[in-house]
Structures are given as structure tokens and as C-alpha cells.
């Protein structure tokens, strides 16, 4: 029963498989093409099982037999018909006298009017190229295939992310299409140092997974470790980035997410700029970012887009919301069953009066309400949208009015549970909020058995766990638990941009480039000059007067290592 625990404790799924299984898997298609068109096409039909969408078009170019092979479900048919076939026809006229297949190959490579052209000598390359939506040209007598990029399939347009909404900020969200997602990142990060590294994960699905990072900024150790872990994944299919997240985590048994997820390209770019690595998975609009810490999950994109003074306050409220969502029901249970002296007299009497007809202890009462609420949330998520609204209305009535009327719960408990419910959705990344939602039940249990002592025991255990967590080697409570003074500027508070001199120390490595040039706030026009001087500049008078020494000085404070 506990075997899987042992497996996870040793992280065996992240150990490199012994090479034999790997080799067996690989050698099946790691064979060169024969060069005989008839044989190769036969084998191809064999391998693909003469699938319905496999198209093999035989042509003759310059007296040589040529086959155009593609999967019509994966390619853009106009491209094939308008670009590839006509240019082959043209070629046919031009290379009439050409005799050797090698020469033909050269001229095809030279003259074919397409963008991306690749030579493949192995079956594996050819097969996966076809499956990626490329068009393959096979030439009689050549033991290689030319792969032409023409992939085109139905995809969703770039839309606003539904989960991570912002008040202010870009409205674009990732889609299921990997190239689109990559372009969304590249467009925001026009740096020659941006690197995309491709992996194929999944024995059967052969899903493309792309690592994106900034060369020279992302930690080399993290990159190395990530490459290793991605290489170790041996699974039949990857349908969502969640598969990968679960397979590369440091602590698979922890409820806390150790890899960030987001649908927002701007967020991913911000993470990459801070030295993190993004993992894009084909077929999933959720991009993973790592390494992360607890606090980065509580930050919303608005925090840095909105003016900083406001962000301070909003962020504090969000932290408060998290604490409420974890602790409020258990505090309520603990105080009403153990620590009655902590409530003001009037409230104590009022609570007692409300509970007068409730038959269950506060613990059971809170469990009932909690369960009802969780069921409602789940139902609201799963039901088709029009019905979902009805459920919400019914749920609000059930939880709010009827439960109190029926003496199943006291009004105060309804307030507590609904406040908790609302607070748990203040979390911008959803992942952490869900964790806290689930941790709430054990907390209530501890509160009901041991009172406030139990709650503090629970919180302590949680903190111990969090402090021991690592995300790709970086501590989970990072800028707080190994306390880094320089990084406090963007943890609980949000320093103004002109004071964010450095990137986060751990993620950005010790190569702490200046993020903002110190003193940039003073360089705002009008701040440098005395007011009357500025007026003179504007009116054009007194141009010859020597300027006063600029008042601007670099910040005297710590600007980070």
C-alpha cells in the first residue's frame, strides 16, 4: 500500500532509466531510409497503418520518381497545392537533363519555394516530422527525405485568459498551440538571448515541450537539472502541462505547488526576466514557470502594473485573505468551543443565542457548511455555464437563508463560511488557493480537538513543511525564510519600479544585473531642474546662463549585490 510512497521518497521517477529500455524504445525507428522509393513508401504505409489521412502523391521530376507524402489532417492544403506541387512542376521543366538523383536533390533544395526545409536520413526523423505536420519529399535513389514545413491545423484564437483576469494589463492569453505561444513570448521579449529548447515527451503522444529562458540570466544549475528531469520522464502521454508539473516536482507528496502555472504571456515574460525558466507544452495553454516560491504565487500581475502605493495595500489585503481562508473557520470553532472568554460579552451572548437551536457542535456545523460549500463550488465549475448560475443562486439560498431557518447552522457560521469562501478566491493563481481550501478541514479538526493550541500546532507544522520545501533547489519561503533584505522590495510590499534596482537574488543568480538604473526617478524631466529654471527653458529665455548643479543623486541606500 505504501509502495508508491517509497517510490516518491526516492524520486525513482526522476532517476535515469537504465539505458537498455531506452535503447529498445529508440532503435525501432532509428534506421536509415533505404533510398528505394517503392520499399520506403511501403514501409511508411506499414508503419502508419495506411491511415485514412496519409496522402502519398507520386510525381516525376526530371525523369526521377518523387513522392510527396503528408498527413492531410496536419498540413495546410493550399500550401501543398499552391507552393510545393507547382514549384516541383517548374523544377521538372528546368532539370530535364539531370540524371543523377544527387543532383536532383541539390536543385530541389535550392529551388523549392518554401521557408523551412530539412533533410532527414532516419526513419524516426521522417516519421515524427510527418506527425508534426511537415510535408516529406522522397526521391528515388536518395536515402534521405526532405521535410517541408507546412503545418496548419485548427486552433483557438488568442483570447483573454478566463482564470487570471487583470484590471490593468494585457488581455492576451496563451492558447493550445505551441508556436502561437512561443510567438507570444518572443514578441514581448525581443532579446537575442531568449532561448527556446525543445524536448519531446511522451512515448505515444510525442508531445513537444519547450523550455524558454534568458541565456546568461537563468541559473545554469536549474537549467541542467530541468533538462535532466525532462529527459527522465517516461510516460505514454502528456495532455496537459500538469503531467509535467507533477513529474518534475521536488516534493511530489507536498500539497503545495512547486512549479508556477499561468495563462498569461506577460507573466511568463516577467518570470523569465527574473531568471526563471518557462516550460511550454504543446496542447496546453498553461505555461509552467520555475523555480517559484510561496510569495510569487500570491502576486498578481496588476501589482506591478498598477501604481505602487495602491499595490501595497491590495497585496496586504490579499495576504489577509489567504490567512482568513486558511484559518477563519478553525478560529471560529476554537473560540466558540474552548475560548469563550476571548469574545466580547455581547457577541458571546449573541452567538450563544444564535446557536440556541442548532443541534450540532460547532465543529460538525462547520463541517456541514464547508462540505456544502465545496460541493457547490465543484458543481458550479462542472456545470454548463447557464445552469451554473442557477446552482449559484440555489446554493446561496441554501447556504444563507434556508440552513439558518432550518436550524442547521447559525447565522454567524454562515458568515464565517461565506467570508472564508470569498477570501479563498482572492488568490490570483488558484493553485495555492485550492491547497489552502483543502488544508482548512484538517485545521478545523485540530481546532475542534485542541482549540487554539491545535491551530497553532497546525500552523507550525505547515510552516515547518514550507520551510523544508524546495523548488528546483531554491527554498520555498525564499526571500523571507533565508532572509534576503534586498529582495524584500517585492514580497509583501511592492517597491516602486524606480526603486527595484536588482532582480530577485536567488532566481536571477548572483549575476544581479541592475534592473532599473539607480536614480532614474530623479531623472524625470522637471525633477532635475529647479522650477523657475524649467520655466526659462520652456520660454526660451536666458539660454546662456550656466545651469545649476543637478540635484539628482544616486540612491544612497542598498542597491543590492
Amino acid at each position, binding site marked *: 500500500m505504501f509502495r508508491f510512497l517509497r517510490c516518491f521518497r526516492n524520486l525513482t521517477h526522476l532517476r535515469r532509466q537504465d539505458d537498455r529500455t531506452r535503447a529498445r524504445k529508440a532503435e525501432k525507428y532509428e534506421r536509415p531510409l533505404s533510398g528505394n522509393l517503392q520499399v520506403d513508401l511501403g514501409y511508411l504505409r506499414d508503419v502508419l497503418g495506411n491511415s485514412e489521412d496519409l496522402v502519398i502523391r507520386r510525381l516525376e521530376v526530371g525523369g526521377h520518381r518523387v513522392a510527396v507524402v503528408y498527413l492531410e489532417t496536419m498540413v495546410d492544403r493550399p500550401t501543398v497545392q499552391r507552393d510545393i506541387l507547382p514549384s516541383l512542376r517548374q523544377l521538372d521543366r528546368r532539370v530535364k537533363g539531370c540524371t543523377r538523383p544527387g543532383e536532383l536533390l541539390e536543385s530541389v533544395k535550392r529551388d523549392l519555394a518554401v521557408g523551412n526545409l530539412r533533410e532527414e536520413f532516419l526513419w524516426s526523423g521522417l516519421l515524427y516530422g510527418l506527425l508534426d505536420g511537415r510535408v516529406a519529399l522522397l526521391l528515388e535513389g536518395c536515402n534521405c527525405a526532405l521535410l517541408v514545413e507546412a503545418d496548419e491545423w485548427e486552433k483557438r484564437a488568442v483570447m483573454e485568459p478566463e482564470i487570471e483576469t487583470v484590471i490593468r494589463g494585457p488581455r492576451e492569453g496563451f492558447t493550445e498551440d505551441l508556436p502561437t505561444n512561443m510567438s507570444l513570448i518572443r514578441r514581448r521579449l525581443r532579446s537575442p538571448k531568449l532561448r527556446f529548447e525543445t524536448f519531446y515527451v511522451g512515448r505515444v503522444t510525442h508531445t513537444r515541450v519547450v523550455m524558454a529562458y534568458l541565456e546568461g540570466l537563468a541559473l545554469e544549475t536549474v537549467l541542467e537539472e530541468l533538462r535532466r528531469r525532462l529527459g527522465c520522464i517516461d510516460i505514454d502521454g502528456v495532455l496537459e502541462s500538469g503531467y509535467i508539473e507533477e513529474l518534475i516536482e521536488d516534493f511530489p507528496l507536498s500539497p503545495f505547488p512547486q512549479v508556477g502555472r499561468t495563462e498569461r504571456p506577460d507573466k511568463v515574460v516577467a518570470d523569465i526576466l527574473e531568471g526563471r525558466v518557462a516550460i511550454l507544452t504543446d496542447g496546453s495553454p498553461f505555461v509552467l514557470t520555475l523555480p517559484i516560491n510561496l510569495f510569487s504565487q500570491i502576486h498578481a500581475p496588476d501589482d506591478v502594473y498598477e501604481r505602487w502605493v495602491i499595490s501595497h495595500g491590495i497585496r496586504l489585503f490579499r495576504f489577509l485573505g489567504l490567512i482568513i481562508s486558511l484559518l477563519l473557520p478553525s478560529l471560529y470553532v476554537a473560540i466558540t468551543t474552548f475560548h469563550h472568554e476571548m469574545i466580547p*460579552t455581547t457577541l*458571546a*451572548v449573541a452567538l*450563544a443565542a444564535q446557536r440556541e437551536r442548532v443541534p450540532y457542535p460547532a465543529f460538525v456545523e462547520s463541517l456541514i457548511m464547508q462540505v456544502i460549500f465545496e460541493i457547490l463550488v465543484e458543481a458550479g465549475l462542472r456545470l454548463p455555464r447557464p445552469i451554473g448560475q442557477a446552482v449559484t443562486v440555489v446554493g446561496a439560498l441554501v447556504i444563507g437563508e434556508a440552513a439558518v431557518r432550518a436550524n442547521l447552522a447559525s447565522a454567524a457560521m454562515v458568515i464565517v463560511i461565506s467570508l472564508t469562501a470569498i477570501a479563498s478566491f482572492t488568490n490570483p493563481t488558484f493553485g495555492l488557493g485550492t491547497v489552502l481550501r483543502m488544508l482548512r478541514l484538517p485545521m478545523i479538526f485540530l481546532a475542534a480537538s485542541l482549540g487554539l493550541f491545535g491551530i497553532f500546532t497546525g500552523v507550525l507544522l505547515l510552516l515547518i513543511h514550507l520551510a523544508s520545501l524546495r523548488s528546483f533547489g531554491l527554498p520555498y519561503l525564499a526571500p523571507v525564510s533565508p532572509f534576503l533584505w534586498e529582495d524584500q522590495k517585492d514580497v509583501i510590499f511592492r517597491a516602486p519600479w524606480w526603486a527595484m534596482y536588482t532582480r530577485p537574488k536567488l532566481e536571477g543568480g548572483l549575476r544581479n544585473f541592475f534592473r532599473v538604473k539607480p536614480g532614474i526617478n530623479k531623472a524625470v524631466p522637471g525633477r532635475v531642474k529647479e522650477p523657475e529654471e524649467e520655466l526659462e527653458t520652456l520660454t526660451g529665455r536666458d539660454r546662456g546662463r550656466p545651469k545649476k548643479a543637478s540635484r539628482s543623486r544616486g540612491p544612497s541606500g542598498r542597491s543590492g549585490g
Partner: protein
Amino acid sequence: MGQGTRLVFVMALLTLLATGCWDRREINELAFVSSMAFDLEGEKRILTAEIIRSAAVAGGGDAGGGGATSPARPQRSVVISSEEGDTLFGAGRWLATKLPRRAYVAHTAAVLVGEEMARRGLAEVLDFLDRHQEFRRSTCILLTRGPAANILVEAQGGLEDSLGREIAGLAKWVRVSGYGFIPNIHDLLQDLSGGGASTLIPVLEFSPQPQPPVSGRVPSGPGASPPTGLPAEPEIVRTVALDGAGLFHHDRLVGWLDRRQVRGWAWARNRVVRAVLELECPGDGSKLSVEITEVEGDIKIEAKNSLLEGVIKVKVEGNLLEQQCTHDFTTPEALQALEDRAATFIAAEIRSALEQAQEAGADVFGFGGALYRKEPRLWKELHNRWREEFSELPVTVQVEAKMRRTGLTSRPWQPPAR
């Protein structure tokens, strides 16, 4: 996970379950005691508790349905429960035989001590209150003339729905009158442990008030109702009020102060927050009132050639807020005269309280403490016969009054001359 680890894990989980929540008390299983009275009858201690009926408190489910018409007379939504025993705690436990809930005293707002008990000594009451983990030191304590249970049982609620809350409210707002204050157990313990070992506890009394008649329909039984349209007779309702205070030497009641004297004491001990002085106008016999807004009282003792002399220095500031006469108080001379009069008035109050205290031999002004701080050696010599020393202590009272403002108008309003 090894066999041993697994075992330890399971055991740890089981211990959590084995606790069985032994301290768990649902909030609606508690009987909140709002106020208590301690009395002595012969050798029996009588403990009377006023327990809030939480079901009757607003918000506690409108189970009565049609019974929404409020009674004309303010009712306390409480249950009074009384029991006697040889000790206070013993008497308290007997209460358990009568209550379906657990008596919970952490929310007790006030404690009343009967005259008998006070004369015998507060020590046992203070010991009980201080020792029990549920009582708070911030609980108000008051004295009654006669048995305290009488007040607890017979008082009919005023604004609040329990006597405890009534007293808690009084404790907060009585200070604006200057006539009194309500000490809590902490104050009491501190006073009694100090040099003078004397204190003063205000007295709670009934104050019969006419209840305004309800006009129009009289809500009562159909048979008993007078003909419609006639207002009912006003009835007398016994609410409570603070009236004077008891003087304690050590923990025993030794004398009384009336209201004025309580204020006299309060000036000196800096317990006045606001006060109103009713002074005579110059010339005719009409009155004016001065509101005191700042008080700074100070008590000193001076030893000159082994002759002790107490000094009470009080500095007050106030505003003229009302006058029945038409005297012009805008001139400095007039104001000066007014200030003098106010000072004399206050000094008289202080002297009256001082005389009473000296007569009773209760050093409630804290001269003992002042001496101890100033001349510890002398105090060591004197403290055994300090009560006698205090009774004969000459005291000078110096009051300095300042009038700051005369309200929003400077001269009184007068009808225009015809």
C-alpha cells in the same frame, strides 16, 4: 516507510483522537453570568448570580412568533439564581444543582458586595475573585447598603437588559459627572496593597424612576385593559444609580461618603474627568454652571521637624457654560472672581471628604503612600500607627481654577429691551 515509523505515526494520530475534546464546551451550553452579589448572613455566604437568558436576547430566533409586542416596562432578560454555602466557591457549586448549563463567570461585568460582607472584610471576596481563573481583574466591584442580593434581584432594568451591562455602562460614563467612578478588582487590590491600605468603593442604590406611560394602546391582557384612549398611570420602576461610596480601611467598611464627598475625594485623586460646578452669580441668588474640563490633582506630604503636613493641590480648568443672571463675565476681573469662587467651591468639597475620611480613619487620599515615597524611614516608624496619625494630619488644600472659555457666546442672551 519503515514498520516503526508507521507505528509511531498511527499512534500519534490515535493520541489526538484519544483526547476526546475534554475541555470542549459549546457556547450555547454556557450560562453567562452577568453580575454577582456576595452577601453574608450569620456565617453563611450567599452568592447570587444574574444569568443572561441568551434565548431571550435579540437575534436568538424569533420562536415566539406573535409575541413581538414589547412590554412597556423594561425587563431584564435574565435569570437570578441564589445559593448559600460556607464558602463562596462552595455556594457557587451549589448553583450547579439548579442550572441546566454551566455557569460561566468570565464575562461577569460587575460584582456587588453587601454591607455585612463589607463590614466583615473583603479579603475572602478578593481572594475568590483573584484566584479563580475565569474571573477577570477588570470586573467592576460595587458596594450596597444592606444585602447586595436585594439590588440584584429587585432592580428592574434600565436601558440595558442585564444589571451587569447596566453597571459596565455606568462605569464608562459616570466619569463625565465627576460624582463617581467604579473601580475594578485590579484597582482595589492595588489600593489595598499600597501604603494607606485604604480604598473607596461606590455604592449602588435603587433610584425609583417614573416609567413614562405608553400613550394610546396599552399592551396588556384583554380583560385588564383600561378603556382605550386613556393613558395608563405612570408606574415606578426601580433602576439603579450610584450614590456615595463606602470607605474601607484595610478590607473593612469603616464609613461612608456622600456624592459630593466622593467628588471631593476624586478631585484630589485625579479621578475627575469632567465635572459641573453650580456656583452663585454675583449679586442676586441665581446660579451659573461651570464645566470643568481639565483636572490635575496632586497629593503631597511634608515633614517639618517631625511635624507632618499634608498638601492637596488641585489645578482645574473649565468653561462657563450656563448663567441665569445677566452678569458680564467678559472682563478679566469678573473671570478672576469666578475662578476664585470655583476654587473655593472645590476646596470645600475636598475638605468635606477629608474630614469624613479622617473621622473614619481611612486614608483614601493616599497620604500614607506619599509619605512612604518621600520619607521611607519615617514611614517605617509610623506605619503601625498611621491610622491615628492620619486622623490628626493637618492638611492644606490649595485649589487653582482657570476659566478658559465662555462657550459659544460671551454674554448671556437677553430679550431686546422694549
